[in-house]
């Protein structure tokens, strides 16, 4: 995966497959600590200790019991290459928290990439999921909640064309604002 935002999409799909009805995504970028933390918490079925250790190993897949593939091992590898870590905290029956940390300035850190499209995909293509997104870059914060949006929409689907156009503009403007108006972290 070339972008951190693609890993995020992957983590949320894992939560979906674990039967989660609520997923919280937190992105905390703190340049003074030189760290970028991505945390995905869900209320899915969770994993026991044994499975939690297995999911990090790409060569042990238990496809008959659950779909486990390359997603987490790839992210684990990418964090470790960048002075970070991937931590899995999970309780069977309660949910899972995946926390990934990257050294923000690390030469090998993948770019965040197109976060707008990632968040938009999650919101639109998982209409029944309660999704919340918190993003902090130094002292700036953005919060987006699928609940708030669907309360306002009151029955109008997110795929309504004018709503889609609003959503795209809203996410692009507000995410760019976190980075001081830049549309891309490299600009």
């Amino acid at each position: 995966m070339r972008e951190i935002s693609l890993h995020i999409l992957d983590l949320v799909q894992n939560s979906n497959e674990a039967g989660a009805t609520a997923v919280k995504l937190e992105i905390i970028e703190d340049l003074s600590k030189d760290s970028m933390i991505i945390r995905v918490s869900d209320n899915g079925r969770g994993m026991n200790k044994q499975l939690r250790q297995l999911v990090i190993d790409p060569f042990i897949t238990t496809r008959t019991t659950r779909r486990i593939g390359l997603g987490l091992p790839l992210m684990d590898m990418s964090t470790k290459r960048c002075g970070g870590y991937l931590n899995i905290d999970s309780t069977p029956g309660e949910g899972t928290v995946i926390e990934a940390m990257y050294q923000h300035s690390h030469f090998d850190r993948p770019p965040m990439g197109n976060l707008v499209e990632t968040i938009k995909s999650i919101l639109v293509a998982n209409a029944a999921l309660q999704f919340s997104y918190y993003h902090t870059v130094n002292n700036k914060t953005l919060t987006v909640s699928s609940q708030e949006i669907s309360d306002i929409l009151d029955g109008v689907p997110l795929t309504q064309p004018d709503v889609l156009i609003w959503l795209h503009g809203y996410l692009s403007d507000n995410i760019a604002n976190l980075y001081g108006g830049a549309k891309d972290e490299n600009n």
Partner: protein
Amino acid sequence: MKTIEDLKRLREELKTKNNLRHEGGTQIIVGMGTCGIAAGARQVMTAVLEEVAKRKLEDVKVCQTGCIGMCEKEVLLDVVRPGEPRITYGRVTPADVPKIIAEHVVNGRIIAELAVGKITE
């Protein structure tokens, strides 16, 4: 800068329209497992949403699904028109999306050369 207030205004405008349909439309499903994402599923999803907005398609439902085991044919995109078989398109690129939407979603013509599967319910 677009705000939540803009969405509230938009919702008020939409209330006055009576052509809102929430159920019974065509479904578009994109494979978003690790295999799909690595093959470019998000870009395909972006293209689908752009096309829905551009063509003002009011009764299309867009969903995502996980890996179904045809990883080598990702990106997989399914179209389900009400009462018709579910058609799976394989190795879909963003450039294929306008064609799939124009031909299949809007006009009901299956694009045979892109299709890799058909499920009749």
